[in-house]
């Protein structure tokens, strides 16, 4: 499930559990970039943000590295810190902007908070992610593609707590027009500690969690260690462990159709490993909004060509199909489908983009 329940710490406390991060040019205003971070999988009606957590969106300017095969990430960063206070009847939120200004807003108010070049929403919304989770697990357990023509969406009718930030990127962000985006939860206080971080979807769950193919660290629950890393500066301590796990698991997925589309290099490295290890969304704000452009920029880099779309990630994209097709046949074969093609409610193309929350009893597919 995208990044839902992605490690022991997230399982223990859903209020820190980032389910997804999205980044896309605004469908209704090309000058704006939209960033979304969702937390709290399976949020019931009374779910609230923690008052002891910083919900952070980090944005850095990014370009294609001189080698043409990877990204060069700028050191300068635009950070948006969201904190919440109070409980019932309504929480109040504060967003600290990169220039030091603070915007106030109230939970679930659709117009949200505004400042020059910015609009913010936070509140309960329908979870836009969809997949057949049990069949994804069965695929790994049986080492065979287990998806059915019509799958069952474990997240159907579920809600999350969403944070939506619409930015006039040219005036608010540093650099551009291509950006790297990461969402984080950190414990508040004098010395914030990173609890979770998410860039790309399904890295920790589908891509990293299976241990059985990893001959180097077969017993290691790697996800909490991975969560603690700075996405823009992965420590050397565990980089080898992440590489080993990614190489093993990506090779497993590649082999699911009985042929090799991603030949490993002489040292056993999968061609996607380094790219995925740089775990952030890559979005080009100068390109028009696109509904299906996840990983386009990365693919262009891999293929040594100039990208044509905005990349990033839109709310309604059938991410699991895109990802499985990428992993299994590198896009050279038929599209791999998980049998779930839509969420319970489509997201909107106007602010705050995410569909309103579902009633609790709607949670059956």
């Amino acid at each position, binding site marked *: 499930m995208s990044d839902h329940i992605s490690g022991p710490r997230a399982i223990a406390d859903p209020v820190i559990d980032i389910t997804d991060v999205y980044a896309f040019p605004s469908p209704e205003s090309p000058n704006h970039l939209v960033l979304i971070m969702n937390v*709290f999988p399976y949020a019931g009606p009374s779910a609230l943000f923690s*008052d002891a957590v910083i919900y952070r969106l980090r944005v850095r300017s990014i370009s294609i590295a001189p080698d043409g095969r990877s990204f060069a990430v700028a050191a300068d960063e635009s950070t948006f810190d969201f904190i919440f206070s109070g409980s019932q009847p309504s929480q109040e939120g504060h967003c600290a902007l990169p220039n030091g200004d603070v915007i106030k807003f109230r939970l679930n108010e659709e117009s949200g908070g505004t400042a020059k070049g910015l609009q913010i929403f936070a509140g309960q919304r329908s979870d836009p992610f969809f997949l057949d989770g049990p069949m994804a697990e069965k695929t790994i357990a049986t080492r065979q593609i287990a998806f059915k023509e019509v799958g069952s969406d474990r997240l159907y009718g579920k809600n999350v707590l969403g944070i939506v930030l619409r930015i006039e990127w040219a005036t608010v962000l540093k650099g551009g027009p291509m950006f790297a985006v990461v969402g984080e939860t950190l414990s508040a206080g004098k010395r914030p500690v990173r609890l979770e971080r998410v860039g790309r979807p399904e890295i920790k769950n589908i891509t990293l969690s299976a241990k059985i193919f990893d001959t180097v660290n077969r017993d290691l629950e790697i996800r909490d260690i991975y969560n603690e890393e700075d996405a823009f500066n992965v420590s050397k301590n565990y980089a080898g462990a992440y590489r080993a796990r990614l190489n093993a698991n990506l090779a497993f997925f590649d082999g699911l159709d009985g042929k090799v589309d991603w030949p490993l290099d002489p040292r056993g490295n999968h061609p996607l490993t380094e790219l995925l290890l740089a775990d952030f969304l890559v979005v080009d704000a100068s390109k028009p909004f696109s509904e299906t452009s996840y990983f386009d920029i990365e693919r262009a880099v891999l293929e040594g060509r100039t990208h044509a779309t905005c990349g990033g990630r839109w709310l309604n994209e059938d991410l699991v199909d895109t990802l499985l097709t990428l992993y299994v046949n590198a896009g050279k074969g038929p599209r791999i489908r998980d049998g779930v093609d839509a969420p319970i409610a489509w997201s909107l193309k106007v602010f705050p983009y995410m569909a309103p929350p579902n009633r609790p009893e709607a949670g059956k597919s």
Partner: protein
Amino acid sequence: MMDERPLTDGTIALLNLDAQIDALEPEVRIGPASVETRSGLAELIALRGLIVGCIADYDRANEIAEQLVRDVPTDPHALLARARTHAGFHRFNDALADIECAEQLSLDAETANGERAAIFQALGRYDESLVLREEAAKRRASFEHVAALVGLHAERGEIEATERRYEESRSQYRGVSPIPLALLDFQLGLMWMNEGQLDNARTSFNAAQRRVPAYAPAGGHLSEVEAELGEVDSAISRLHSLAESSDDPDYAAQLARILWDVGRDWESRYWRQVAAARYDELIANHPEAFADHAAEFWLAAGADPDKALQLAKMNLEVRNTPRARSLLAQAVAAQSASSSAECHENVVPPCG
């Protein structure tokens, strides 16, 4: 004292626990939900029951786990879920049998031994529990493993070891939920109370309640400590609110006892009746789980030594702990005192 990391406000934490339960409950009720969802829901509901002192929550968790085992009897996680709810109702032998079975069905040894250690502790088999708990903490000194040792040392009255492990476990805590730390403070409070160090007990129970204001057992024990320290009005006020909100008769029983002690007989009688009726109901449904507390009630405010003795014997059969032995000794003494008073009454006719 170490730096306190910021924690989620206890009211928000409890609302979020409700939110998790409310999101999963329709899925489980309508069915079919996965084993993971159902066992996860049972665990969340049992946790809420523990925090707010709600026996109906334990019943619901048990119902989910029982149904789960009926539906998938060979799933180790279903058996694990039922082992936990069985242990919650003090059906320790059934719980151990479920764990044994789950392990044969490939439940990992670390999880199985963690569950066994908790049951051994509840049964008073402290040495066996300690071996398993220490092994786990040696393998991985996580918050959960070290916190489990705090509870064990506290129950054994090992003050130095408890305090050391308490500090160690707090330093290992990486989360923002206040609930695990409130549970830890509660363990410490119980130890101080059992050791007669009432000021320390009050500090620990207060800490637990500050973290999670709705933490009913912390409030209940805090009232006991306050009453012992002569702060009767505060104790009564606290217990009033707990006795009204909780379906656990312990609060009504404590309230009846304290009201009686201060001469508020009429009010005491009302709460005594409330507690007596509820204990009878609970003993009929879950005798093993409530024998100890019911025996304590009948020994004190309930004033029925025969009933207390019968329940204290049953409790000792369930678990041979120092507390169970002490309870039986008190019940024997009370029953014997009551019998001799009755004999005396028979020999010497009442005046007038």
